[in-house]
């Protein structure tokens, strides 16, 4: 029962941490435009162009090419296109690492499906169990290979080593431990993931189950990593959305009378406390005061 409670606590902590961090970013003030081309939803994205290429562009309201943005994101998520293009050596290690994580995500879904099916007495047959095993083993193996590759590279390359904080190495070791425990558990006690399936069923139906120590260790380390993720820079699995959509591709023009304009006007009323003499901040002055102050001749 303790393991079930721990699992729910971990899941809730993960969800709350992700939600809070997402909210924190989403609630940040609108920033000045800082896009970087190509912006894939621009109609001229094929050559990296923008609406500024149009004469009297403010009279043009181009329909954003949502599909273009989705395609780039899909390539980025599924192929790690950016790393592949700019750092092939890293990609050779990072791709198995992320591929392993995706497969482990699929493993969790399959375990969930099995638990639901067991609850409604739906016989999934042997195929799903076989797929679960293949997906799980491949996931742990790829994650382990990738984590080991990334870790050795980080240790072997002097620049990467110099720039790494202890946590950067710790993070990779964590993944390596999770992957190793998964593979050892599979090899020694859980050849067909029946114990993991049993745990998933127990979790869904709140029905405690006795598991081998190795499987318990595997689950506990996996849960600990899950809790840790949103507090580390590995939170990029959800914050990357903001880095692309809210900065790199944010080319929303400020139109007169728009909501964006109202937001900007409100933010221009924020107090300025920068201390350099030429800024003239402090004494309750806001951005409008500072920006319209006359410079002494």
């Amino acid at each position: 029962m303790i393991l079930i409670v721990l699992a729910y606590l971990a899941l809730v902590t993960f969800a709350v941490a992700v939600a809070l961090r997402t909210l924190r970013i989403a609630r940040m003030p609108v920033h000045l435009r800082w896009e970087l081309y190509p912006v894939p939803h621009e109609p001229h994205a094929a050559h990296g162009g923008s609406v500024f290429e149009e004469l009297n562009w403010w009279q043009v309201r181009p329909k954003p090419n949502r599909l273009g943005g989705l395609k780039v994101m899909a390539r980025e998520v599924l192929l790690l296109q950016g790393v592949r293009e700019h750092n092939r050596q890293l990609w050779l290690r990072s791709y198995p690492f992320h591929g392993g994580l995706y497969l482990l995500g699929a493993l969790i879904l399959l375990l969930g499906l099995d638990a639901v099916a067991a609850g409604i007495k739906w016989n999934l047959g042997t195929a799903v169990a076989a797929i679960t095993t293949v997906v799980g083993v491949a996931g742990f193996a790829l994650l382990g290979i990738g984590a080991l590759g990334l870790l050795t590279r980080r240790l072997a390359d002097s620049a990467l080593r110099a720039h790494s904080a202890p946590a950067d190495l710790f993070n990779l070791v964590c993944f390596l431990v999770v992957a190793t425990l998964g593979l050892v558990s599979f090899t020694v006690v859980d050849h067909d993931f029946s114990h993991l399936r049993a745990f998933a069923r127990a979790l869904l139906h709140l029905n405690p189950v006795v598991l081998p120590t190795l499987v318990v260790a595997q689950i506990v380390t996996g849960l600990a990593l899950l809790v840790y993720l949103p507090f580390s820079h590995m939170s990029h699995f959800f914050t990357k959305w903001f880095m692309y959509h809210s900065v790199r591709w944010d080319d929303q023009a400020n139109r007169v009378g728009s909501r964006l304009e109202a937001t900007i006007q409100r933010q221009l009323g924020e107090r300025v406390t920068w201390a350099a003499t030429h800024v003239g901040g402090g004494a309750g002055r806001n951005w409008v005061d500072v920006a319209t102050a006359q410079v002494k001749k």
Partner: protein
Amino acid sequence: MTLAIPFAQVGKPSERLGRLEDRARIPLPPPYHDFEEPPLPALSPDIRARCECSLDDTVAVSTPRPATPDAEDAMVKGFLAGLDKLFSREDNWTFLEPLVLSMEHCTKCQTCATSCHIFEESGKNELYRPTFRSEILRRLYFKHRSGGSLLSRFQHGDIDINWTTIARLLELSYRCNLCRRCAQACPMGVDNGLVAREIRKLFSMELGIAPKEIHEKGSMLQLRAGSSTGMNPEAAHDNVAFIDEEMTEKTGIKVETKWDVAGADVLLMHNAGEMLSWPENPGAFALILEAAGISWTLSSELCGYDAVNYGLWYDDAQFARVVIKHAQIAKKLGVKKIVIGECGHAHKSMMVIADRILTGELNIPRESSLTLLAQIVDSGKLKLDPSRNDFPVTLHDPCNIVRLMGVVEPQRRVLRKIAPRFREMTPHGVHNYCCGGGSGFAIMSSHNFADWRMRVATRRKFRQILEAFQDDLDPARPKYVCAPCSNCKGAIRDILARYKAKEKVGIRYGGLVELIVNAMTDARPGFLSSDE
């Protein structure tokens, strides 16, 4: 390649944290493949004694050394106060979100490094690795925020918070052109260019420290005298009158620039540096707009005849002041739109960054001259003979106009029509390399900084230019680098002069409008004469 620099070294006082090593660098293409680079002139002992220059072999900011330990402490305290403001909603709503995202999500994978022309052309000098300065700021920020807790040091690494670290960080923020090519390569979207800019901002807006060329003699001078060149409205009038005369004489077409025409369709704003350094550029603009029948004007209001906005590179308050002046002038004149001449940072300032500062009546439409020129050429209003430009032409893409605002095709559309031997650089478009003059480097020349710029920052552009003309290196046959940006032209001018590229390879440079005028059949042939 130099050895990685441990972050523990950054705060340890020493004469220099690193050196520029010429032997590690990639040779240039022919005819400069065996060119013997003279050593970088050393900073004088006097400068070394007076200024903070413990980063490398040059100095950009010339910050005086604090005289006493107490003065050092005061500077550190000021920096930390500025650091708090940099991460506050009130003082930095302008860039808070992109900065926080970049601070919190770098995986330190170094994918960005090879995309940086400064890092590459310095022989992969660790000082100039794009993540180096960001990592210093990151460590300072997290350590300061957490009070130096063990958890923070574990998570983000450690660094000494002292004047040595801070003084080196200041100089480091001026070893980046802010071209953001590294951000384009980052799979996470981390923007080391933005981080460099925000470091500059902290120093300027909190401590009042910035290179004099971009602050005192730059944005302050512009706000006081009307132009960062120091040119007042009367001088601008005189210069333009002289340019009109020259253009008329040279082309045989009467050119008469109009000033302060209320209700004109177009308020044209040049980088005023053009009037002094490349007068044929504003002259060519005047001739083209007249020939195309455009209703246009220049403004003689203070700041109205100078589109530059150096605040873009280092200071939000200075940026906003200049851009508001520009918008107020356009509003007062009642023009339909502002068209920005061939100046990259003025493009980005007015069209992109100012977009979320100018509201209501000040939100005057702003357009790139490249777009307007493409439309004029497409319209057939000018009679053009491309055979007049029958020499190799290559195009430099100013980062601010291309990668940072997506104006890629209009200038190419024009060149395809008027320059039969146009060839691209590699890479080009949004993947271009900076000219090395970006973010103020082109105008910063204190001590040996201009020399450093040419041997490191501009070297990649020179390499690209040479590669574009490798099919014909004969100096007797002229070649033309079209660089539609004043700062880029300044950097290219300097590098071509340094290597005597005109004499050795026949390489000239200039803007886009000069090429258009050179192709105009109504104008006398030879506008771009070979001796220019």
